[in-house]
């Protein structure tokens, strides 16, 4: 047992649901008790999704506990198949079904006999993997399922496209700025003369999966999701993959050079050097920013970075290598992939922290007192408490991290966005500091705003106690209204009762 107040990565089934509901016309059925379908709330709220989230629950209740699910799961699958005609139904186990140890695979096989669409069981263990690992695994599983199916039906498409082409893996629903990143990567590929064969899973149909082998290579922009699928395709079809995250000017160039190498190995004969040079020096603003006097002022400023592997590693490199900022500590909550993270960031920071205990990170921040933090929403709140500005760079995230405007993190436009994020965090911190030294914007004493400065009215103890329970931003108004009410009625002692009578009288 572990005492926990907060977690960075969610439970395994969330990862599976993120993959399933990213595809078009794929439905997930959770084997779970009532109330476990809060994934739908998250998706509907955070992503402001217009469509019903294609996730339902085969409810585990007392009866299931006593007698097993029996026909229930099979019925729910075939019912959903008839109602919505999904291409695929993914039966999703949860922590509850992990313990019940029902033979879900058997339910899937029985349902498959009746269902017109495909049915599969997500092969994830709640107690062994987290959200991110489960997402990676489920994506690979679905890809493998449809490759095997196409092979069996003999309609697998293996001949390569005429022009160089790519599959982009790992774009998912509820992913940090994933939709903007997908747009930016599409644009980058088109600038490089590379056709996008498929973007998986976001917006893809499972029918496209049989054509995945047509692409010349796979691009996996995020460390957490897509790698397993790319490795699988490499084994099966000898498809090369590029897993360098194009985040920041230097890494974007490195990613493009790797793509160039992969394509030229297949006889494409492309040279992207002039494109990289043009973009770096004149199109993107990030390289120029690093030379400008603004950025000079940031030299040696101290920062702490924490997030998932992809974003924490990329930000650490950008801060240290591209802006001359002193990264005191870089950390990740992806404990299962610790070695990779250490290898990526070791030379760009003083210290590395691998932990999923938010208290430990908060303590480190308090101890190090950086000028800015780059982390998740949790670190933003730590920053608030310690008066240190924070730029949010990774999940877990709130609704404000799903902006409507175009805000990619990858590619050349992404590096512009990151410059703004970093610069704004630091200047805000400096401005704050200066204000404190000089005693605020306006050092004159603030004149009281109260209408009735010295009141002839008496507030009784209970009246005052009740008044203090009213939220601060309306308290002044309530106080004035109550006093007016009391004066109109010649009441001299204001009790809780008078306060509520006044509230009713003005109807507010």
């Amino acid at each position, binding site marked *: 047992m572990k005492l926990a107040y907060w977690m960075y990565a969610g439970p395994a089934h969330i990862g599976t649901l993120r993959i399933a509901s990213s595809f078009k016309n794929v439905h997930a059925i959770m084997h779970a008790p009532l109330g476990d379908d809060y994934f739908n709330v998250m998706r509907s709220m955070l992503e402001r999704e217009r469509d019903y989230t294609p996730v339902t629950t085969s409810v585990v209740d007392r009866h299931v506990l006593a007698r097993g699910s029996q026909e229930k799961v099979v019925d729910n699958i075939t019912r959903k198949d008839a109602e919505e005609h999904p291409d695929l139904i993914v039966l999703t186990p949860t922590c509850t079904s992990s313990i019940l140890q029902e033979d879900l695979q058997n339910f899937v096989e029985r349902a498959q006999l009746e269902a017109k669409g495909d049915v599969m069981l997500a092969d994830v263990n709640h*107690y062994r993997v987290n959200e991110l690992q489960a997402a990676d695994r489920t994506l690979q599983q679905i890809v493998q399922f449809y490759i095997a199916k196409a092979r069996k039906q003999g309609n697998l498409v293996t001949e390569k496209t005429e022009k160089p082409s790519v599959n982009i893996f790992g774009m998912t629903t509820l992913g940090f700025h994933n939709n903007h990143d997908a747009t930016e990567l599409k644009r980058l590929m088109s600038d490089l003369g590379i056709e996008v064969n498929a973007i998986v899973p976001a917006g893809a149909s499972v029918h496209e999966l049989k054509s995945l082998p047509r692409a010349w290579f796979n691009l996996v922009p995020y460390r957490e999701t897509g790698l397993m699928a790319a490795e699988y395709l490499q084994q099966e079809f000898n498809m090369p993959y590029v897993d360098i995250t194009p985040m920041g000017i230097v890494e974007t160039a490195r990613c493009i050079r790797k793509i160039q190498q992969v394509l030229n190995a297949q006889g494409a004969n492309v040279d992207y050097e002039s494109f990289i040079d043009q973009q770096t020096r004149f199109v993107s603003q990030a390289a120029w920013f690093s030379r400008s006097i603004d950025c000079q002022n940031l030299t040696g400023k101290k920062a702490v970075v924490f997030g998932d592997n992809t974003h924490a590693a990329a930000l650490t490199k950008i801060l240290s290598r591209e802006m001359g900022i002193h990264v005191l500590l870089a950390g990740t909550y992806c404990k299962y992939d610790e070695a990779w993270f250490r290898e990526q960031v070791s030379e760009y920071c003083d210290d590395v922290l691998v932990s999923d205990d938010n208290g430990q990170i908060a303590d480190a921040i308090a101890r190090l007192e950086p000028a800015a933090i780059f982390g998740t929403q949790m670190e933003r709140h730590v920053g608030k408490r310690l008066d240190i500005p924070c730029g949010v760079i990774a999940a877990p995230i709130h609704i404000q991290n799903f902006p409507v405007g175009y805000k990619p993190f990858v590619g050349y436009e992404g590096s512009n966005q990151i410059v703004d994020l970093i610069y704004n965090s630091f200047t805000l911190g400096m401005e704050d500091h200066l204000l404190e030294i000089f005693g605020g914007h306006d050092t004159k004493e603030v004149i009281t705003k109260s209408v009735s400065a010295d009141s002839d009215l008496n507030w009784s103890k209970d009246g005052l106690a009740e008044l203090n329970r009213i939220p601060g931003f309306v308290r002044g108004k309530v106080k004035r209204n109550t006093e007016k009410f009391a004066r109109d009625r010649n009441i001299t002692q204001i009790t809780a009762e008078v306060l509520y009578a006044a509230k009713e009288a003005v109807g507010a």
Partner: protein
Amino acid sequence: MTLADAQPQALNFECETGNYHTFCPISCVAWLYQKIEDSFFLVIGTKTCGYFLQNAMGVMIFAEPRYAMAELEEGDISAQLNDYNELKRLCEQIKRDRNPSVIVFIGTCTTEIIKMDLEGLAPKLESEIGIPIVVARANGLDYAFTQGEDTVLAAMAQRCPTQAPTAEADKEERNAIQKLMNFGRKQEDVKREESEYVDHPPLVMFGSVPDPIVTQLSLELKHQGIKVSGWLPAKRYTELPVIEEGYYVSGVNPFLSRTATTLMRRRKTKLIGSPFPIGPDGTRAWVEKICSVFNIEPKGLEEREAKIWQSVEDYLQLIRGKSVFFMGDNLLEISLARFLIRCGMTCHEIGIPYMDKRYQAAELDFLVKTCQEMGVPVPTIVEKPDNYNQLQRIHELKPDLVITGMAHANPLEARGISTKWSVEFTFAQIHGFGNTRDILELVTRPLRRNGALKDLGWEKLVEEARV
């Protein structure tokens, strides 16, 4: 009047598949830890439970809440680790860091399935660490959303003191000294205070509501000379009310049937079955019922109700004649529907997770009566609704307002159907005469929004085929 007219139109109850969206009952810790200021809630469950609390309760998690997860690991599930030792270790840590007056164990689906004997472990732990431990099994296998509070309060009801002799004696003593000091002056005050109340058997209210609501509802009864001797739960665990055999109890929320049962059967109290004090009609009926039990002639209620209705006329104009559909997820549905019908709305369907016809009997009768008086058909009550079927009915009926969970709100709005997020009714102050406007503020918000955005021509924001 013919005989047929006098026959009340019966309510139509249906029960569907139970495939609906609601919050897990462990969510009750979010409001109960705030209500009971010296408590600590320990949810014994998995990452799934933790992730729910963290996401559903939003920013509250950052305020160093007095709740935490005892996150079960594989070793706990396979019984490689000893539950008792593990819980003891965590409780000691909580005692050291927070020193609460009570630790509430919230049992979850997982503790049910692995049959962790929390009720058995608690008394032993309690004596060992010296802090009361209350066990509530608020799990998704058995309960929905607000029923979580019911399980906690039912467990707390057992902990209410039977009598408070020491405190009573203490007071006497202090009074005696005061009497000496004040030469009896103080006693006059006390007497006057007491004389504001009619002589009636002690009455204890149950249901967790914000402190301002406690004050308002208590004052409401005080107007009739009725004294509320205590409230379950109180602001602090150490202030739980005395409950003796023969006391009267009254519930303020419709989802408290287990608590009511516990108070009646285990504590031998008498339950006053009344409509719930939601809306001015409900509040009046609630006060009247309590008065009738104590043989008090209620005074001034009719004028009071009329005045409240008058003060919200601007909002009533917005909803009169409009239709409302409750998908059902928090058990407040019957009371809210009854209030909205009184406001002049029509209601086709009331979805509700669980319907206790005995505990809600007075509210159900009141609903039928309200429908008759307003001349509208009686709604169908759908217990354990099926959200998929409900969406089909909604698209067919096209109600003016759907009260629903967040999972369906945005998709419905995109299809041109106005929605109000049901969970807001759980957290807003909706009880008593004074909060009528607050309920209507919530109900009319989408309609006022529609008014502000009308003529823009973009009500439907999905392609027709996707409806």
